[in-house]
C-alpha cells in the first residue's frame, strides 16, 4: 500500500451524484481473478459512445477522455460517491487509473472502507465547496488542488483553503501504509482467549445440526 502525505495535482470534475460502483467498474470486469489492471476499465460505459454507428468508440465529450485532464490524481464528484455493490474493484480501478484522492460531499460506507484499504484519501467537503472546486476545474483544467494529509488541509492555486475531517486511526494507517491483518495480529492472544470462550456458544455456530 502506498503511503501518501502531500499531493498536488490537477483534478477531474465529475459533477454527478450517487455515482455507484457499477458505473465505476462495470460487472464484466469483475470476472477477472487478478488484482491489478482495472484502470483501463474505469467508467468503461461512460467513456464510450453508447448508441449509433459509432457505438463503442471513445466519447470525447466525457471528461475522463479529455486529454487536458490526463494524469490527474484527484477526482471531484457529487454526493454519495461509491454507493451500491461492495466490489473493491472500484477502488482498484480508481487507483490503477491514477486517482489517489476523491473529493465529494459524502461517500457510501463500504466504498469508504475499501478505498482506505487501498491507500486512497477520501476528502469530505461541504457541498458548496465541492461545487466551487468542480467549477474551477471545469473552467480551467490546469486548476491545481493540494491535499495535505498531515495537516488535513485542502487548498488550490486560487486561494481556496479548508480543512477536512478524517478518523485519526485511518489517518495513521494511511500515513504509514499499514496492513490491516498485521495490525489485527497484535491482538492474537486476546483473539485466542475470546475464541475459545465463544466456541462454546453453539447457537452462534454455523453448523450445529447434522455433521455431514
Amino acid at each position, binding site marked *: 500500500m502506498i503511503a501518501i502525505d502531500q499531493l498536488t495535482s490537477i483534478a477531474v470534475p465529475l*459533477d*454527478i*451524484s*450517487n455515482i*455507484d460502483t*457499477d*458505473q465505476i467498474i*462495470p*460487472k464484466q470486469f*469483475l*470476472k*477477472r*481473478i*487478478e*488484482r491489478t489492471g482495472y484502470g483501463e476499465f474505469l467508467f468503461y*460505459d461512460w467513456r464510450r459512445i*453508447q448508441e449509433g454507428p459509432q457505438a463503442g468508440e471513445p466519447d470525447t465529450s466525457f471528461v475522463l477522455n479529455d486529454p487536458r485532464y490526463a494524469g490527474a490524481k484527484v477526482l471531484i464528484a*457529487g*454526493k*454519495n460517491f461509491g*454507493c*451500491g*455493490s*461492495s*466490489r*473493491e*474493484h472500484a*477502488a482498484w480501478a480508481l487507483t490503477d487509473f491514477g486517482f489517489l484522492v476523491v473529493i465529494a460531499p*459524502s461517500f*457510501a*460506507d*463500504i466504498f469508504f*472502507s*475499501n478505498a482506505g*484499504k487501498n491507500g486512497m484519501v477520501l476528502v469530505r467537503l461541504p*457541498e458548496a465547496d465541492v461545487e466551487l472546486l468542480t467549477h474551477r476545474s471545469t473552467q480551467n483544467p490546469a486548476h491545481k488542488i493540494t491535499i495535505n494529509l498531515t495537516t488535513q488541509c485542502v487548498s488550490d492555486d486560487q486561494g481556496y483553503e479548508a480543512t477536512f475531517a478524517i*478518523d*485519526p*486511526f485511518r489517518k495513521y494507517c494511511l500515513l504509514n501504509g499499514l496492513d*490491516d*491483518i498485521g*495490525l*489485527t*495480529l497484535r*491482538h492474537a492472544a*486476546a*483473539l485466542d482467549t*475470546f*475464541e475459545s470462550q*465463544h466456541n462454546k*456458544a*453453539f*447457537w*452462534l*455456530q*454455523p*453448523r*450445529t*445440526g*447434522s455433521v455431514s
Partner: protein
Amino acid sequence: MTTTHTPRTLFEKVWQQHLVAEPEGEPSLLYIDLHLVHEVTSPQAFDGLRLAGRKLRRPDRTVATVDHNVPTTSIADRLNIVDQTSSRQVAALRNNCAEFGIEFFDVQSPQQGIVHIIGPELGLTKPGMTIVCGDSHTSTHGAFGSLAFGIGTSEVEHVMATQTLPQGKAKTFRINIEGELPAGVTAKDIVLHIIGEIGTAGATGYVVEYAGSAIRALSMEGRMTICNMSIEGGARAGMIAPDATTFAYLQGRKFSPTGAAWDEAVAHWSELKSDEGAKFDRELNIAAADITPTVSWGTSPGMVTGVKSTVPLPDPTASEADRKNFERALEYMGLEAGTPIEDIKIDTVFLGSCTNGRIEDLRAAAQVIRGYHVATNIRAMVVPGSQAVKAQAESEGLDEIFKTAGFDWREPGCSMCLAMNPDILQPGERCASTSNRNFEGRQGRGGRTHLVSPQMAAAAAVTGHFTDIRTWKFKEAK
C-alpha cells in the same frame, strides 16, 4: 443497592457479544461467526493469503458457493461455461476451496444457490450471529436478528486470516412500520417505500432495525426482502428481532440444532430484541396503510413512486446537482415527466435474485399468472434463487404454471440481477425486475430497469405494462 441495566438495542447486544478487543483510538475488533464466499470477490483474497503464507483460520465457519457468474440455461451450460473468464473464476473458487478446506456448493450441488438464499435455507444463518460476505446484500441475513454486512475483498482476506474485522461502531436507526399492510402490498413495496422516504444515502453510517406490527406480521421471506435492500438506503446492515416466525423457519433445517440443543438455542435467541426504552440515534415511523404497490422510475432505488402515480415532475426547489441527476435519470430511462406509471410498456420481466427469488415470491407470482399468458413480444423469465427453491417450486407444480404462461424456467443463480452471465438486457430494453438495483447498465448496457414486487412483475408480464395488482382478477386453479 439496586443496579439498573441500561436498556440495549438488538444491535448493541450482538455487537457486545462479538467484541474481541477495543484498542484505544482504533476501531474495535469484531469476531465473525459465519463467512460466506462466492466466486467474484474472493480470488484476490485467496491470492493474498497464499502470498503472505497465511492459513484460513476457521474453515468450519466458512462456506462457499457459485452464483454470480453461472449460466442459468441448462446443467450442461453450467458445467461447461463458454465465457472463459467466467469459467476461470468459477474454477478458481473450486480450486481455492479444495486447497483451503472450505465446504463448497458447486453448480451441480443440490445446495447451490444465491449465497444469501442458501445461508438461511440451510440453517447456516442464525439469530445473534455476525455474518459477512464479499457482497453488499449480505444485509439479507439480518432478517434473523444477526448482524450481517457486506465487505470488500481486502476484508474478505482479513476474515479468512483472522476470523475478525476491525469495525467502527455504527449508529442505530429504528424504522417502525405500524398497522396492517393493504392487500396487494408486499415486503418489497415496504422497502422501496422506505428508500423513497429516506433516500439512497439516508441510512449511511447506521444499522437499521425494522420493527412494528407490519414487520412482525411478515414471513421470513418478506423480512429477508426488506433487510436485503437496507444497502439501497445506505445502511450496511438491517436487522429484525427474531421471534416465533424466525424459530419456526429455522427448525429442522440442515444445520440447525436439534433436540435439547434446539431448546437451549431458542432460549438464547429469544433474548435478542431491543429492550424497552433502548435509545436509537434515529427513529422513523411509517404507517403501513400509506404504502402502495411501488415502482421505480429512475436510475437509483430512491426514485420510486406508487403504481397509480406518474413519473414525477422536476422539483423547482431541488439543488442543481439533484436537478441534473433527475434529468439524467429520465433521459437514460427514456421517460417523460408526468407519464402515468401504468402507461409504461415493458419488454422483459425478470423474476428472481436474492431480493425476491424465494419460494414465497414464486408462489405469489404464480398465483397472478395462473390462467393467463404473457403479452405478445414480452420476454419473461423465472430464475429460482436456489436449487432448493427450484425443487420445491417444481414439487408444487409452479414451474408448469410459469411455463404454460410463457415464462422461461431457469437454473438458479444471480442471472439478470447483475447480468454477469449471459442473461442480459439489450440497450433500450425495458424490464420489470424483482431485483434490487436499477443503476444505469445494471442489467445490461443501456438496459432500463424498473424495480417491483414479484406480483407486480407477474401482472406486468401479462398486460405488457405496469398494472395495479390491487385490482387484479385472480383465476382459480382448475
